[in-house]
């Protein structure tokens, strides 16, 4: 930070108020991203204040990183510049909620847990079983495209997000989408911000469609001695008329991390949850048991409500447990198709064994594969890095795998996003439109955007 920048920072407090401006070392450390501290932290109280902060930063060429619960700031590459942390936790209100219409508008800094609490009063919810549940904010889960296991039934946030309001890198407050459940007016610019790590804009408001809380629900665990049986069970479910809300596959490594008594040691486990009318849940209980048997399950257990709650809480927090208990582990996230799940899991098992590492795999909703590489007793950082590189290589690796988390020293050497795709040039154009001065989360996103 240059002396000129130091003076400039002082002006920020006049925008957000002294009580919402921090520059003491302890505060700055709390907002560190990949070991880099900002020069100042602001907590704006309104979307207009966010816009003003961004305009100020643009005029001073200062780089911003927006944050909420700060639980997933490690995702992406290390920032190339980082001057101001924009903490959105004061933007924490429900601004419009029409339960009769099942639509909602909420500020970007609102806690997911608080929002779901508010919805529960009206017997509604959003299918957001996201990790760091008590810390995660709406803006944070959208910016990291945090995927809930409930994606199996509801899709990702992309599918129930109606529109966004956000501040672009030139400090303009823009909106895209709508407040009603259906609208095709204007470009769906808001979709670009999903998973963009704040590199295109700072989310100040999100509009969602909400869902009725299910009348009944029940959880099940089918366990298998190998991957083939577990994945066959998933295939049978997909090809049946059943519509479970959640189907999550945990390999023995993942089951060990989740560490729940309902997951038998050493087994491949499929956790499924059915929701809806009692008769629908009943039908799932019957048919899932049958499909489990057909796919050679060693056991199929229907869970009590208390057991289901406990297990889902652990499954939801899988990534957090990994982050807290295995700080030296690497986590890869890969978009998959049912067809290539087996091959990917085998590839990872091979790579882990070759490098003396432990591994764990979670297949979320048949669409996202989370792979954890654990430095075992013989594992070293070098071997972890070698395994990551092989896993992400375009030849023989898992196409389009993303490194979500790893020790910082590896991160500075490995491109978290893997080889760039054919659409990189278009992404650069998009970035230039939204953030012409390159001040939003610079360097963290795909291709160093």
């Amino acid at each position: 930070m240059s002396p000129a920048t130091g003076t400039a920072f002082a002006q920020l407090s006049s925008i957000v108020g002294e009580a919402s401006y921090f520059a003491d070392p302890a505060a700055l450390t709390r907002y560190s991203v990949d070991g880099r501290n900002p020069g100042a932290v602001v907590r704006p109280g309104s979307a207009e204040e966010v816009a003003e902060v961004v305009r100020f930063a643009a005029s001073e060429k200062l780089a911003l990183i927006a944050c909420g619960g700060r639980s997933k700031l490690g995702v992406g590459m290390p920032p190339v510049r980082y001057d101001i942390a924009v903490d959105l936790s004061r933007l924490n209100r429900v601004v419009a909620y029409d339960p009769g219409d099942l639509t909602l508008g909420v500020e970007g800094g609102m806690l997911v847990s608080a929002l779901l609490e508010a919805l529960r009063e009206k017997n509604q919810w959003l299918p957001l079983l996201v990790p760091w549940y008590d810390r995660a904010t709406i803006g944070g889960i959208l910016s990291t495209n945090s995927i809930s296991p409930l994606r199996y039934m509801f899709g990702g946030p992309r599918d129930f997000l109606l529109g966004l309001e956000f501040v672009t890198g030139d400090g303009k407050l823009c909106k895209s989408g709508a407040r009603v459940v259906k609208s095709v007016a204007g470009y769906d610019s808001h979709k670009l911000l999903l998973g963009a790590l704040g590199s295109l804009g700072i989310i100040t408001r999100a509009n969602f469609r909400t869902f009725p809380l299910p009348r009944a629900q029940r959880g099940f665990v089918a366990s298998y001695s190998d991957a083939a049986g577990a994945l066959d069970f998933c295939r049978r479910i997909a090809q049946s008329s059943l519509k479970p809300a959640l189907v999550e596959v945990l390999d023995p490594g993942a089951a060990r991390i989740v560490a729940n008594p309902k997951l038998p040691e050493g087994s491949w486990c499929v956790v499924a949850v059915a929701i809806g009318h009692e008769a629908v849940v009943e039908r799932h209980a019957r048919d899932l048991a049958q499909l489990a048997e057909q796919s050679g399950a060693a056991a199929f257990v229907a869970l009590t409500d208390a057991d289901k709650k406990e297990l889902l809480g652990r499954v939801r927090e899988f990534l957090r447990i990994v982050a807290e208990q295995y700080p030296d582990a690497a986590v890869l996230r890969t978009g998959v198709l049912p067809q290539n799940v087996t091959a990917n899991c085998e590839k990872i098992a091979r790579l882990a064994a070759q490098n003396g590492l432990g591994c764990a795999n979670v297949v979320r909703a048949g669409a996202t594969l989370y792979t954890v590489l654990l430095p075992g007793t013989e594992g070293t950082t070098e071997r972890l890095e070698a395994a990551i590189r092989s896993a992400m290589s375009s030849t023989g690796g898992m196409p389009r795998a993303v490194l979500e988390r790893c020790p910082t020293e590896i991160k500075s050497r490995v491109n978290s996003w893997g080889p760039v795709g054919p659409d990189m040039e278009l992404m650069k154009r998009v970035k230039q439109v939204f953030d012409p001065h390159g001040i939003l989360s610079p360097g963290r996103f795909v291709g160093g955007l």
Partner: protein
Amino acid sequence: MEKSIIRDLEKLLGRDAVLSARTDLMMYEYDGSVEQARPECVVFPRSTEDVVGIVKLASRTQTPIVARGAGTGLSGGALARRGGIMIAFPRMNRILEVDAENQRAVVQPGVVNLDLSRAAEPYSLYFAPDPSSQKACTIGGNVAENAGGPHTLAYGVTTNHVTGLEIVLPDSGEVVRIGDKAAETPGFDLTGLMVGSEGTLAIVTEITVKLTRKPEAVKTLLAIFDRVDDCTQTVVEITGRAITPAACEMMDGWTLRAVEAFAHAGFPLDSAAVLLIELEGLREAVEAQAVDVIDVCKLCHARDVRVAKDDRERDLLWKGRKNAFGAVGRLSPSYYVQDGVIPRTRLPETLRHIDAVCAKYGFPVGNIFHAGDGNLHPLIPFDVRDHEQFDRVVRAAHEIMEFCISVGGSITGEHGVGMEKNELMPLLFSESDLGLMRRVRDAFNPTGLLNPDKFFPSSKGCGEIRVRPLPISEPAAPTPVSGPPA
């Protein structure tokens, strides 16, 4: 257009792939809207390479281009507003792959919506977006407009079902693949941006879509009402009680009399309105929901709730609904159909408002729409050949759309902005919203030659409707607008 451009296009594509005679071009000056604009030539590519060749030629000669599927669009999106080259896709109509295991299909843009569902049928799969024009409209057009349909209430619109695209950039002719078969790929969601961009950003030459498993059980109910208010209140109650039908369509008495004369579906001619409600899913879910729906209908004073006995009865009811626009075409030389969206809780007052507006401007109005989504399609019969009527109907439409916006809604739920509603965009979006969209457009389509003069207002922030010249060159004597048979 210079003759040399046509000659070059013929050289590139073959003579049978280029139309330039006036009589041929007249076939392409319409879509399903009240708009009209004639291209200077129409070309029929057979491959992505053909499209690249066309785009490069257009770029070199600074000729406007517009892509067109089946021309069933309702906002003028596929009309050649500034003349130039129209790229029509009937010859790029191959289903390249049906990947049943991964529930995906890869198609060319000219594939007809219903043909894809037919191809997926052997695997008990189908393509969920089902616009009323699905027998004719193409997947390419669906992607451009982010098309909806009755069943999008439960399954989402086109954007929820597209995972990847191959696009041709209008400035360079470069072919770029975005997205993939997998539902998530690293990077910005360019696929999400492209769907619904109304052919203003790039030309789509290949589409990867999700296929949905066919439901085990389907039940179709027809709820009959003596008062429109009771019908709309039923929709409010269904939504409020969080009952989620697969489709919930409303037709008022005016419309269903028009439809019945054509479809003979057994719609009650003396009723004020009906709801066509479809429940889909597991047998148990359908049965439970049917009980709830019938309960609500009775509570809201439905005169009767009929359940379609078999597929034949069900198909007949849907035939009536999906061909309603065509049925109205039998009664009036033209009609103006709108596409506003409102919060579903505001349905009763909005319908009353629409009635009042149409009465004020001296038009009858039929209401037929996706009630479950709050997506209205007021349908105003008028005579497009009559200057004064045309101007009046546009003003009535403007007032209706303003009302939709005033209650927190949108000017279009599925038909798109095109050249019909572009001047209304400032009512919905601020200057900075529109500025960002313009810069996005310029990033993909820097010369603006791809589908020009659409989507964006022509002048800054006025929201005024332009008074257009008479759309038909040889006016005939105006025909009086008739009501439907009583």
